[in-house]
């Protein structure tokens, strides 16, 4: 429609702003403004277009319009006519929505420009406001903050400390501090009983290491590297700066997004925080290298540590494995980059970060590597039994410094505390473990005959039984461990079963093994990567129950030849003996990946799964073993143990019976079947089984255990041995 020209007339309502009344008014569109005239006006009044104001922007489709003069005019004019609205809008452009919105945007855009300038200058001049603020914080405030952080990290985990470990740690720390320029004021290092492999620098100079880190590091140099890295963080006050930055960004984001949803705010803050973290990590790495060099500690350990982390499966306790390929989201710069940077450093003269004694002391900060079972009284559900006779030899669980971890297979029923070792259900017994683990392959597992269910996963002992011979994985109850040495054809028997007698957990004395170790070491002196020699030496170590040393050799061998399934297998058995079950599983996984038909590895893995109570996985393993090698009796026997732990007693009995039918002298099968019957309440059948066990010779590694347990159970059940 055409725009009305000057002279057009409209009617409206005019209010004077003094009362709520309104008068009809006639309006004429004039050149310079609106001409208004009410009935009692003697002359017209003019409202210039420039001065018109409407509280609502006048749109092109507005049906009516409400005007005043300037924003503070008292009179209001209302015209209910869309044509009029259009006229006014065309003559007074300041009434349009676009104009109004632009006015509203100006302050916002100005604010954005200011912020852009601010952020740009911080970035361009590399200012670090949060770090500057952090330095201004007084030390005691930082220390209090750090204490709060440590408390929240630790939750209910304890601090691990023995006088020896404390001294060792102090020695390492002061050596590193001496090489630090600008050391932080008050550095305190502590170890938390946490299986996670990680280390944290918290405000105030405290550094937290985890048990996982210390126990899974291959050498003290690795720990020194990580500690130096955390010192770097502390020197730069990254923890304090990080907190200040986070608070500042949160406050700013709250301001910016006042009223809108919180998710945008949080995402932005998190992403920014992460970016700063990555820069901080690079800085800390640089500091670490400098400190290590100044302290005369090799940087190889530092790199080794990262490579070790990389090699772990993602499901392990690795804290920076999660977002390998997503740099944006990860707080650690690609580990590969860091490793490369570290390895690229020139060599220099170095000595180990800690002496052997100190290193051992540090590794045992959280207690001896073999854990003493708690003295919980077993609750015996099904079977009543008299307290078991004292175990033949109940070695008091010495905090073993020896790596006898694996053997829990001690004939001994269980360390003293455990009353009814024999009680089937004895849960506690599970604990047996430790103390006596003893190499004795022959010695059967801990009493807990009841074993399995009772065995709490934490009881390593039962699980590992690896009697001396490497391979093997016995499982509680002496699950059959296949062969001992992988090398020669895996003999089914416990070839090198160490002496059966239960003995306190000490490294076995084995001159033959010593000779082999010496030979192998000579060979390795000329060629450190001689995997055959390494393997031989590792096996020898294992026979002496020195599984730490065995593991070290296997690890070196695997490094040199990662595709050798046997080496991986050996590594797995060493880990299993050390009760590092998750890693053992990983090693067996790797073995099976390289050699899918490796029955021993599958068998051992099944045992470990059983200890970890992953019964479905254990069943899968044993089913596969039985399917592919039905003559491998240990597989059937071990599967029976799994069934029994799952309380599928019928299936367990069936497996034990199958074992016996294939080998009438499989002593442990009788005993285990007897235990199963006992748990099912079939006392007579159980007695029969136990008696039968005693009539056959003690066969296989778990033969002696089978005899001892059978005798005990018979006594407990009040039956004669005949």
């Amino acid at each position, binding site marked *: 429609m055409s725009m009305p020209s000057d002279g057009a007339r409209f009617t409206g*309502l005019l*209010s*004077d*702003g*003094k*009362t*709520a*009344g*309104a*008068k*009809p008014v006639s309006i004429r569109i004039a050149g310079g403004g609106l001409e208004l005239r009410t*009935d*009692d006006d003697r002359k017209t009044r003019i409202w210039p277009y420039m001065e018109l104001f409407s*509280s*609502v*922007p006048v*749109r092109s*489709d*507005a*049906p009516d319009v*409400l005007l*005043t003069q300037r*924003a503070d005019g*008292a*009179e*209001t004019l*209302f015209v*209910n006519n869309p044509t009029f609205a259009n006229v006014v809008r065309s003559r007074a452009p300041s009434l349009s929505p676009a104009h*109004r*919105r632009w006015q*509203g*945007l100006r*302050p*916002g*855009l100005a*604010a*954005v420009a200011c*912020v852009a300038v601010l952020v740009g200058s911080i970035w361009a001049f590399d200012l670090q406001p949060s770090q500057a603020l952090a330095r201004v914080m007084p030390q005691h*405030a930082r220390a*209090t*903050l750090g204490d*709060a952080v440590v408390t929240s990290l630790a939750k209910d985990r304890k601090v691990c400390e023995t006088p020896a470990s404390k001294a060792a740690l102090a020695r390492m720390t002061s050596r590193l501090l001496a090489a630090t320029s600008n050391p932080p004021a008050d550095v305190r290092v502590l170890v938390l009983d946490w299986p996670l492999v990680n280390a944290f620098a918290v405000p105030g100079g405290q550094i937290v290491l985890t048990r996982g880190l210390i126990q899974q590091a291959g050498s003290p140099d690795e720990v020194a590297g990580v500690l130096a890295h955390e010192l770097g963080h502390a020197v730069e006050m990254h923890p304090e700066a990080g907190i200040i930055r986070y*608070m500042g960004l949160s*406050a700013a984001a709250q*301001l*910016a*997004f*006042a*009223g*809108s*949803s919180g998710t*945008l705010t949080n995402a932005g803050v998190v992403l920014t925080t992460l970016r700063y973290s990555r820069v901080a990590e690079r800085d800390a790495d640089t500091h670490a290298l400098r400190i290590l060099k100044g302290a005369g500690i090799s940087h190889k350990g530092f790199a080794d540590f990262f490579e070790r982390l990389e090699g772990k499966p993602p499901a392990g306790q690795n804290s920076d494995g999660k977002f390998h390929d997503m740099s944006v989201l990860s707080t650690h710069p690609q580990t590969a980059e860091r490793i490369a940077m570290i390895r690229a450093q020139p060599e220099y003269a170095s000595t180990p970060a800690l002496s052997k004694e100190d290193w051992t002391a540090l590794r045992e900060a959280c207690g001896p590597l073999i854990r003493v079972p708690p003295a919980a009284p077993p609750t015996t559900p099904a079977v009543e039994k008299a307290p078991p006779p004292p175990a033949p030899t109940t070695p008091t669980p010495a905090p073993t410094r020896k790596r006898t971890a694996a053997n829990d297979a001690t004939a001994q029923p269980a360390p003293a505390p455990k009353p009814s070792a024999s009680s089937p259900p004895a*849960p506690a017994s599970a604990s047996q473990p430790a103390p006596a683990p003893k190499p004795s392959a022959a010695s059967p597992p801990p009493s807990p005959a009841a074993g*399995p*269910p009772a065995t*709490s996963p934490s009881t390593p002992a039962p699980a590992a039984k690896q009697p001396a011979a490497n391979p093997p994985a016995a499982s509680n109850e002496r699950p059959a461990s296949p062969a001992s040495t992988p090398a020669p054809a895996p003999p089914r028997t416990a070839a090198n079963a160490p002496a059966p007698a239960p003995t306190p957990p000490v490294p076995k004395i084995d001159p033959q093994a010593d000779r082999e170790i010496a030979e192998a070491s000579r060979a390795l002196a000329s060629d450190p990567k001689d995997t055959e020699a390494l393997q031989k030496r590792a096996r020898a170590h294992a026979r002496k129950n020195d599984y730490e040393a065995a593991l070290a050799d296997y690890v070196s061998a695997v490094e040199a030849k990662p595709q050798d399934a046997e080496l991986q297998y050996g590594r797995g058995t060493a880990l299993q003996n050390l009760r590092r079950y998750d890693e053992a599983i990983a090693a067996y996984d790797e073995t099976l990946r390289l050699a899918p038909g490796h029955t021993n590895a599958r068998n051992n893995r099944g045992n470990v799964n059983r200890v970890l*109570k992953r019964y479905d996985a254990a069943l899968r393993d044993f089913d596969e073993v039985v399917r592919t090698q039905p003559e491998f009796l240990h597989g059937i026997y071990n599967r029976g143990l799994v069934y029994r*732990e*799952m*309380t599928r007693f019928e299936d367990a009995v069936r497996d034990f019976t199958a074992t016996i039918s294939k080998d009438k002298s499989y002593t442990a099968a009788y005993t285990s079947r007897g235990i199963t019957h006992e748990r099912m309440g079939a006392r007579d059948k159980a007695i029969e089984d136990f008696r039968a066990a005693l009539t056959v010779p003690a066969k296989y590694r778990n033969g002696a255990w089978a005899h001892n347990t059978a005798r005990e159970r018979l006594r407990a059940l009040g039956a004669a041995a005949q």
Partner: protein
Amino acid sequence: MSLVDQAATSPPIATVPHISWVHPPGGFAGLSMLNGVLRILTLGIYHFWGKTEVRQRMWSAIRINGEPLEYRGTGGELLRGFLIVFLVILLPMLLASFGASLLGPAAYGAYSIAFWIVLLLLSGIGIHRARRYRLSRTRWRGIRGGLSGSSAGFAWTYLWTMVLIPFTLGWIVPWRTVRLQRALLEDTRFGDKAFTFTATSGPLYKRFLVVWLGTLLLVIATGAAIVGVSALGLRQPLPGTPQAMPTVKPEYVAGIVAVVLVALLAFAMLRAWYSARVLNYFAAETKLQGAGFTLNATAPSLVWLTASNYLIRILSLGFLSAVTEARSMRYIVDRLSCEGAIAWHEIGQNPDALLKRGEGLAEAFNVDAF
């Protein structure tokens, strides 16, 4: 045609105001989304201007005798209000919180208690001041609204009645509602005339009793239903796995969720039934210059309004919140009518001096005037 003689002699007549909603061209959805985007682009500063434009549009949809209400607030006033509250209240609280955490757990505990008391007090003040700001920026035919009375007095009543709620197991709620509404309404002005409010809490208690008992029964019934369904669908852990807890089978979890949803719906209907009664009763007891009001809210329509608004807000991630505000306002306006004639010429301009900044507290603590 000349109206001279009539205008001179006959006094302006009192007319019955006709209240209506005229939906603005363009609606609210587009504006709401645009505001959301601009707010993000300007790091939040545009929020205040966006809010203002939404209010301008909403106010102009409310018509008395076909003439719109006007909203005269500005974004600048809202921003100023917010900044002042941020600097004077929020920032010190943030620093105090940080400092208290440094001083140790006892100090932090004391700080937390103080924080909650301050928060409740300031909320009451915030509500009052926000209302005053909005009323003073509302005009019809050039006549301003207003809220007299002191914010502190209102806040005190707000606080002590709220503290008593748990101690009276909720029975103080109807009395509190009436008390607060009276405090606000009798101070509300249109021009120089105040509203009158003659409601008492008695008539509300009958319905409140039903709601109270109904809620109790609902809670018990829901709890029993959940326990029952869980028991049916319980899966025992394998014996011998020592620390495992029994879990519920997935199909039965769906059943539990359904029970909870049904319970929520029933509760919503109960509450809406009570709210409708409260709203209608309050409207009937409100008068301006002798003219009364009638509101025709019903429980089902209220439930529908609340639920749909909630869904709109959630599904649009808050970008369509202006639409929900307009819908709520339209709901009331469509159902509101006035009985009785008002002599407009007898209502003079509001004499209060204007606040120069608006709603900082309400903004900061996210409370609303209505």
